[in-house]
Structures are given as C-alpha cells and as structure tokens.
C-alpha cells in the first residue's frame, strides 16, 4: 500500500515540476534568447531493499525527474549567428557608405561647381575683356575649391567617426568576451542538467549571438557547456577560453580598412574580419579611403591642369598668367591637453611648401615658439610669427604649455583659389601671330608658348619678330634687325624665344607673318578657349568629369550592391531565426496543450493518493473493528 503512495507521490512531484517548467516557458515566451525547456522524466526501478511487508512487490518504482532539457539546436544556432553576422556587416557598411555618398553627392556634389566653372569659362571665351565675367570665373573657381575642401573635411570627419565606431565595436567585443568568460566560470560550478545550468546556457548563447554580430567567430562547447571562442575560423586567435578572455583593439590598415588585433599589446595577433559589424566598418573604410584618394587626385588634376593653362596666357595687365590655385594649406590641431582657449589663424605665403610645424606658448616669458616639427628651425617672440612662409596669429587667451600642431594638407583639403583680381585672369594668349595684310598666299599662323632660347641670344633679339617666306617655301624666323633665329618648312613648329610658331596652308614667296607679345588689355580669348578645352582633355582616367563620375560611382555602386545583399542577408537571417525558433522557441499553443496533459496527470496522481488513503483508512477501520 505504501507503494501506491510512493508511486503517485513521485508522479505528483514530476508533473508539478513539468507544470512549473511550462509556467517558466510561458513567462519567458517574449524573453530574447530563451530556449524552451522541458523536464526529462524516467521510470524508476523498484527499490532494491524490500521491506518485510512487501513480499510480492509490483514491478514498478514510479517516476523520477532526470533533469531539465533545453530544446537547443547547435547547428541552427550557428547558422543564425552566421546570418546575423552577415546582416550586421552589411548594415554597418550600408550606414557608413550612405554617409560617404551624401558627402560626395546631392548638395555636396562637385558636379555642379565643376560644370559652372566651365560655363563661366565659356562666357569668358565669349567676352574675354568683361570684368564681370572675369570676376564670375574667379568666384566659380573659388566655389569649386571650397567644395573640394568641404568634401575632404567631410570625408576626414567620417573617417574619424568611423574609427570611433570601430573602437566602440572592439570595446563591445572585449566586454562581451569578459561576460562570456564569467558565464563559462559559472557553468563550471553548476550541476549539468539543472535549471541554473539551462539559464546559464541561454545567457551563453545570447552572448555568442552578440559577439557574432561584431566579428566572425568559431565556437566550441565542452561537456559542461563552456564556450571556447576563436575569431575567424578554427585557426584564428582565441577570444574566450574557459574563464579567460582576451583584449581586442582595432587599428587602421595602411591600405584602408581596419585590422582587429586580439591579445595583450605586444603579443597580439590579427584576426580575420569576414562578417559582423567590424567587417562592415572595415569595408566602409576601405571605400572611404579610396574615395578620399580619388577626390585628392581630382583636386590635384584640376589644380595642375588649370594652373598650367592659366600660366600659359597673359592677363589684362599684360603680365604672364599666375597659378590659379594654391595646392597646400596649413591645418591647425590644438593638443588635447591645452588649458587655454587661444585660437590660431594661419596664412601661407604664395608658393610656400612648409613641412609640419608646432606652436607652443610659454607663460613665463609670455612668448610663442613656432618650430618645424623636426625642430631644425624655430622662431620665438610675440605674435605674429613667421617661419618657412607660414604666418601664425593668435586670438583668445593661451595657458602655459599650450601646444598646437600645424600640418600641411594637399589634395582636396589643400586646394584654394589664390588671391587674384579679375584683371589677373589670363584670358588672352601670351603671344599673337597673324598674316601680314597684303600676303599673296593663303596660310595661317598658329603660335603657342614655348621655352626660352638656350643659350639666350646675344645680342638680344630686337622685337618684333616675323616669319618670312623665302623662295622654295623655306620659312625664316627673324628679328626686327633681320637676324635669323631659326628656319624650317611649312607645317613645322619653329622655336622662338619663349614661343613656337607654325605656318600652315599655302604661303606665297615674300609673305610674312608677324609675331608680338600680348599688350595690356589686348589679346582676345585664345587662353580662355584653352582653359575651356580642359573640359575635353583626357588624362589616363578620362576627362575631369569622367574622374568625378568614377568618384561617385566608386561609392554608389558598392552601396547599391550592399543594399541588395543586405536585403538577401536579412531574408536569410529571418529564415535561420525561424528555423531555430521552430526547434527552440516557445509556442504558446504547445505549452497550453502540454499544460492540459500534465494537469490531468497531476490530478490523476493526486486521485491515486486519495484512493490509497481511502483504501488504507478502510483497512485500518476493518482492523480496528
């Protein structure tokens, strides 16, 4: 009779635990990372030692709870981690590439200022003497340089923010690693199969999922459920091993991208970045650096082409064209520890090409020191100070020891319109040539800038020079005194002093072609036309506008591809999550059904106890009677 009680008591206990577990599952139905748990029961063998009252025992021992089982599916968990890593990578790349794209397109696009610069050159070619048109051209050139500076500054800022984001991800990786190591430690101390172990396993899997969103990982679980995590693949560096976790940091790769280094400084090793947010950030940085290089190349080419063409011409004062753009700028960075609020303004002399410098304030003497970064030269005194063509001025109040670093910037950050007056726009060619009125032949003269004669002619040539057509069609370039400078045939470029001239067509014997330097206020539009022709000039990367298109599509194409891949990765992730949820998730309908089942089992067991009690009571009554 005591058997009956013992058997149903074990049944009541087991079903109560099962019901408790169902309640726990339902309570955690909305808890992220909760894996459905169930109570594993098994039938007990009859007790080995029989009591003297049980001479003919039934062959049953009741039911026992063997442990709590998590409905975990390691393969599906791994596949979800992988797909979540992909989504995190593409999300991070998409977020940053969108920002890079925004800093190069729309209102920040270089297309418009470039197009407007050429439109103003077209106007200059149509009206080379107009002061208003010249001023417009200069302001367009200024706007283009400003846009280059703004885009370069935007990209620089984005690069720094991107690094900060990557540093944040690395810090997250470290803290997740630490948390996982702590969970590992607790797992070691917990009885396998207990409720506590199941809870820790949930926490472990959640942490693993979060780590996979930062970087690619390879996970091994030991018998107690402790996770060993390597970055990349099974051969990658260890991030977490048992109760130990490693440090991690992100450094800039020289060719763009980031490198994740695992381990203490000095003995760290690089980890491959294949998925996770860090891989996305690395991809974004690679493309950002590439865009920055393209932007710099475009700025350098605009400056070089425009300067060369402008310097070949003559301005309205009759002087040689000066360079349009300066290509170097000094950028000031205040040291982080500065205590004062001094602001530094830097100006750069024309044509100066300074190296990096440092500016320090000495409170005792009240003087500033401007020095080359390598300390090979310096000046000390009160502001303003000048060194190597760099002049600095200060406003605000400095404190002793305040330090400012001055670094020269070139490319898109360095380009600037030089201070030119509208009259200094070289719309005219340096040299003019024409056929003398009364020439009998039909021929035309072209003239372009050339190197001065080497050695210089002695005695000096007497201007003006002219080309005469000799019998037999030979051409002679002579000065006003008849001294022959050079000779050649029709169609040849004849080298003069600072120019080259070519006669083409059919000149007649005795024809002459006059040459003169452009005088102030004269000269027409030939140099404006030459500047305008830069729009068509093809470098190794096509025209300037082609280079610009390449710059934009260098971001837009990968961004578009990233978005498509991101959509696919999300679908994959959702599918993996659903698959895992089918195996490990809590389904309320199923819990309800099981609840009914266990409820009935509980009631039945309770009923049997009651029956046993009644039977026992009846027995006692009959004995007592």
């Amino acid at each position, binding site marked *: 009779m005591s058997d009956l009680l013992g058997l149903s008591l074990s049944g009541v206990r087991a079903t109560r635990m099962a019901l408790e577990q169902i309640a726990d599952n339902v309570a955690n139905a909305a808890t992220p990372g909760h894996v*459905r748990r169930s109570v594993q029961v098994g039938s007990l063998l009859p007790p080995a030692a029989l009591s003297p009252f049980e001479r003919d025992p039934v062959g049953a021992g009741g039911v026992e709870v063997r442990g709590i089982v998590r409905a975990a599916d390691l393969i599906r968990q791994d596949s979800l981690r992988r797909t979540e890593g992909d989504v995190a990578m593409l999300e991070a790349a998409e977020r940053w590439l969108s920002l890079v794209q925004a800093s190069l397109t729309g209102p920040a696009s270089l297309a418009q200022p470039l197009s407007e610069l050429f439109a103003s050159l077209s*106007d200059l070619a149509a009206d080379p003497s107009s002061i208003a048109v010249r001023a417009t051209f200069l302001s367009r050139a200024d706007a283009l340089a400003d846009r280059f500076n703004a885009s370069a500054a935007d990209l620089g800022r984005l690069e720094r923010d991107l690094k900060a984001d990557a540093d944040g991800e690395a810090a997250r990786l470290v803290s997740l690693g630490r948390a996982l190591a702590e969970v590992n430690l607790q797992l070691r101390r917990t009885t396998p199969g207990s409720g506590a172990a199941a809870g820790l396993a949930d926490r472990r899997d959640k942490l693993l999922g979060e780590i996979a969103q930062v970087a690619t990982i390879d996970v091994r679980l030991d018998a107690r459920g402790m996770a060993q995590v390597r970055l990349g693949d099974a051969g990658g560096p260890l991030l977490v091993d048992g109760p130990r976790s490693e440090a991690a940091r992100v450094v800039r790769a020289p060719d763009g991208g980031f490198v994740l280094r695992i381990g203490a400084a000095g003995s760290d090793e690089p980890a491959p970045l294949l998925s996770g947010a860090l891989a996305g950030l690395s991809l974004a940085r690679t493309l950002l650096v590439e865009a920055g290089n393209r932007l710099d190349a475009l700025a350098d080419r605009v400056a070089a082409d425009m300067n060369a063409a402008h310097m070949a011409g003559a301005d309205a004062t009759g002087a040689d064209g000066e360079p349009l753009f300066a290509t170097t700028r000094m950028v000031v960075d205040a040291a982080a520890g500065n205590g004062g609020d001094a602001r530094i303004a830097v100006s750069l002399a024309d044509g100066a090409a300074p190296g990096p410098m440092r500016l320090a304030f000495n409170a005792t003497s009240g003087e500033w020191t401007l020095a080359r970064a390598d300390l090979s030269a310096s000046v000390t005194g009160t502001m303003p100070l000048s060194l190597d063509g760099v002049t600095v001025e200060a406003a605000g109040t400095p404190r002793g020891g305040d330090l400012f670093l001055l670094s020269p910037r070139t490319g898109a950050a360095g380009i600037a319109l030089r201070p030119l007056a509208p009259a200094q726009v070289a719309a005219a060619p340096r040299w003019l040539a024409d056929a003398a*009125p009364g020439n009998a032949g039909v021929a035309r003269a072209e003239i372009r800038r050339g190197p001065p004669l080497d050695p210089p002619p002695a005695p000096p040539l007497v201007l003006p020079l002219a080309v005469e057509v000799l019998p037999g069609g030979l051409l002679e370039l002579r000065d006003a005194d008849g001294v022959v400078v050079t000779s050649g045939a029709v169609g040849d470029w004849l080298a003069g002093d600072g120019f080259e001239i070519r006669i083409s067509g059919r000149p007649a014997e005795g024809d002459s072609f006059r040459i003169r330097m452009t005088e102030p206020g004269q000269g*027409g539009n030939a140099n404006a036309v030459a500047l305008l022709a830069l729009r068509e000039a093809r470098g190794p990367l096509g025209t300037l506008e082609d280079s610009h298109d390449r710059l934009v599509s260098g971001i*837009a194409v990968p961004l578009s591809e990233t978005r498509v891949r991101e959509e696919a990765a999300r679908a994959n992730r959702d599918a993996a999550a659903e698959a895992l949820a*089918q195996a490990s*998730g809590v389904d309320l309908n199923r819990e309800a059904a099981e609840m009914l089942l266990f409820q009935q089992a509980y009631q039945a067991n309770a009923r049997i106890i009651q029956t046993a009690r009644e039977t026992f009571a009846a027995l006692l009554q009959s004995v007592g009677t």
Partner: protein
Amino acid sequence: MFVLVSGRQVASTAAERMVAIDNRIERLEGRIARGERFTEPAEDPAGQLRAAALARLDARLVAEQRGIDRASSRLALAETAVADAGRLLVRARELALLAANGTTGPADRPVIAAEVRGLRDQLLALANARDEAGRFLFAGARDGLPAYAEDEEGVVRYEGFGTAHGAEAAGIEGLAPPTGPELFGTDETGAFATLDDLLEALTEPDDVLRQQGLEAALAALVEDQDRLATAQALIGTAMARLESETERVAAGRLEVARGLASVKGLDLAAAFSELEALRLTLGAAQEIFQRVHGTSLFDRLG
C-alpha cells in the same frame, strides 16, 4: 504538419517585414514628391551616371547658346557697320564720277572734296566700330585699341593684330567679325588710301593729272566696294551658321530633356499604383498578424 514557431520570433519577423514595407512606401513617396525615379546615386548608379552626363551636356549647351548669342550680336553690329561703309563708298564713287564729269567746274570741286573728307572721317568712325562691351570689332585680337588711327602725316593706318574672338565659346572656329584689312584693304592700297588719292586728285590743278587721278580712284573704289561686299557676304554666312547652331543647341536641349525624363523621370501612374499596392499589402499584413497571432489556446481554456 503542425509547425512550432516561437511567438516572439513570429512577432519580430512580422514586424521587420512590415517595417520593410513601410520603408518602401516612404521611399516611393519621396520619389513621387520629387517626380524622379531615384533620389540618390546608389538607387540606380548607371542611371545616375547617364543623368549626370545629360545634366552636364545641358549646362554646356546653355553656355554655348550664350556664346552663340554674343557672337551673333557682334556679327550683327559688324554687319551694320559694313553696310554703312558700303553706302559711304557708293557715295564716294558718285562724287568721283561727278568730279570726273566735264561739267563740274573749279568752284564745285572744293565742295566735293569737303564731302569726300567727311566720308573719309565717317568711314574711319565705322572702321572703329565697337561691340556692346566697347571692344573694337575690326581690330582683331588687339581690340582694346581703335582698329585704325591716323599717323602724324594724316595717313590712316591699321593698328589691329591677329583675329578677333567669335563663337569659340560654343566650340565653333572662324565666326569672328572680319579684321580691318579684310574690309578696307591694306594701308597703302585700301579704301582709306583710295579716299586720300581721290582728295588729292580733287585738289590737283592740272586737268590731265586730275582726270587720271580721278579715274584711278574710281577704279580703286570699285575694288574697295567689291572687298566690302565679299566681307559682308561672309558675315551673312557666319550669321546664318550661328542661327543653325542655335537650332542645333535648341534641338540638343530638347533631346537632353527627353533623355533626362526617360532616365530620371518617374512613371507617375505606375508609382501611384505601386504605392496603393504597398499600402494594401501593409494593411493586410497587419490585419492577418492580428488575427492569426492575437489568440492562443490559452484563450480557449476555461
């Protein structure tokens, strides 16, 4: 088969899908508001490149048109001056014929000479015609100074040099106003020399020499008129060319506008029906989610 799916997972997946539909609706609304098929390069990189090229071409055509207009106006001013100069030479020829006529007496010749002197001054003023920017039209590239000036001896000399600017801004060579020598010949044998010779002949006391001089001047005037007529015809041709260039630019801009419409333009009807469809889908998704997942077996347990 009874599929077991975690309630939480279903909810978050469904929510993400609904957010995705919401995002598409937002993007589509942006496109409809702008009337453009894409709002940023990444939405259609190839289309964006084409659109950028077309926009550049349009800006370029607009600038070319300004260059053409400017060249046209210079040519129109030149044409007026040349036509006036032609009329002056016709009058000079009439006067020369009158002086060569036997009926003209010694008292008439100073009157005729005075008129010829006036014609010469007018011709000089016409040869120094300016464009609206004040540049001398017939001085070639040296157009900041008058094309012709009298030297100390009163001889009119060409001071210009090279060729003037035409429609190079529109990429067309050779549509500049003619230079002084193309209109008026050289300093020694051109129109100014002819008028000086005519004046000299008119004051020649010797009848035979005067008659010879007048006849030579008449012959030279014919040549000067021919030269002007040729130049005038060339100006007319150049203006006709610029007119056809204007048509080319207009046609080009129309093509650009069409191209832009086909690359960037949004098919509004299609966009609206897509928007409607998306809204319907979103509504249906929300409704179904609520119906399917709004209840569980727990609701049925008394």
